[in-house]
């Protein structure tokens, strides 16, 4: 399972992280918000049966971290 964080604005390098399985269906990843603003997080992975999954969700990171 891997995570890719892109800012919605052009011109920022994405943050790429692999997630570690910590339980059944549970994954944990450390992720650094390199700048405040709007992010699109894409989670992708491969299931046991070979299918791939991909989900996107949006996060707005306020100034001062969060």
């Amino acid at each position, binding site marked *: 399972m891997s995570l890719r964080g*892109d800012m919605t604005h052009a*011109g*920022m390098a994405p943050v790429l992280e692999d997630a570690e399985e910590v339980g059944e269906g549970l994954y944990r990843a450390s992720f650094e918000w390199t*700048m405040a*603003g709007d992010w699109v997080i894409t989670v992708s992975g491969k299931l046991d049966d070979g299918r791939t999954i991909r989900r996107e969700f949006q996060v*707005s*990171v306020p*100034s001062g971290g969060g």
Partner: protein
Amino acid sequence: MDQTARIARRGSRPEEIYRPPANLDLLHLPVLGRLLRWRWGRLVFQLFFLAVAALVIYDGLTGPQLAPENSATVLAWVHYRGFIILALLLAGNLFCFGCPFTLPRTLARRLSLSGGRWPRPLRNKWVSIAGLFLIFWLYEWLDLWASPWLTAWVAIGYFVGSFVLEALFAESPFCKYVCPLGAFNFVYSTASPLQIRPREAGVCKTCVGKECINGSASVPGCGTELFVPTIQSNMDCTFCLDCARACPYDNVALSPRAPLEELTHDHWPARWDLAFLVVGLTFFGIANAFGMVSPVYALHTWMAEALGLKSDAVRLLLIFGTLNIAVPALVVFGGARLSQVLSGRSSRPPLQLAGRYAPAFVPMGFGIWLAHYGFHFSIAGLAIVPVMQSFLLDHGILWLGLHPDWGMSRVLPQEWIFPLQVGAVLAGFFVALYVLLRRAIRPGTTPAEGFREMLPWALVLLVITIVSLSIFNLPMEMRGTFNIGAR
């Protein structure tokens, strides 16, 4: 009559004309000069930018719609803006020189139906100012920076606008009176180090055909109708070099000039539209940077809650209307009136005073835009590499490898960027003060009168500097708009 003129009158072939040694002339450098003067020289550069524009349109319409992964948004909002500001600082109006939007010009002219003149009431910069306001408002409202698809349509709109105006009118009104990009480039090219000028003024005096403006059999004359021997400004000069190619005497030079020559001399026209454009662009720069720091989101939220303005478009219209129209208008008209009151016995009409001191806003605005666009270019100048790797891979081309290096982005170390931004703004401020002083202290005016006259403008520049530094000191956000109005 000098020897040049005598020979020119006898109708000698151009290569026989005596010409004294000229200052450095880029058009006569060994390789570059020949390329620039070559009939198709501009076309080479235009075709390069046309290829870039075609990529922006194609990838914008068909590629991934996440802005950092698409060449349309990266090229338009990171590289184009970084390129123009650096080009204007180091050379001149290089984008207008290579502008792909005017490529269909020849076809448009052949299709020309009426060949009429651009309406006289619009022969000024007010349409450009309205265009700038529109594009900056659309940029924020429609989140153009986040949409490859809309970015592609902006490029298409430029091609269509340029083509239609070229087809309908005999001159090039799109460049001179309409294009927002051109207006930006014209203003800041007044601080650029290069300028078109005649190699030998005497040749122009005896020239009959005035091909630089009228055109020759094979080369069009100046599209924006500038006459080379009278050019004292880069304003309205697209650097197309048609004048140089059309001149039968090879008498047009592209030469370096003294730093700030144009901003400090007395030839700046006293026109409200020009004064407003120059001052307004400085405030556009502030508003554009303000759109990327957290207080703007607090302002949006307050306007939504306290004023009941649920529409993002209306809130932005109010914010930009205030920052980009009302405040610059107050500065231009109020500053001119205050100058008049303070200057005492040497007082001049407000229009003359606005024309006299508006040029000081060129370096101020330049510093702010350099700080902002330089920021984006510094943190993302290399982002185009993985974007192009990804683009090629999507099309089955392996030239740039199998794995995009998404880690590539920064051009400069992060810790350099803020000091450089501060340096750009402060440099803009101090150069602006120097321009003010040079324009205030002049024959027929005592230093005290000149100082009083420039005082309102100096105070405005000081406030602009403080506000700009405050904005750049805030952590810049790559927008935080998902939650606006919902907080």
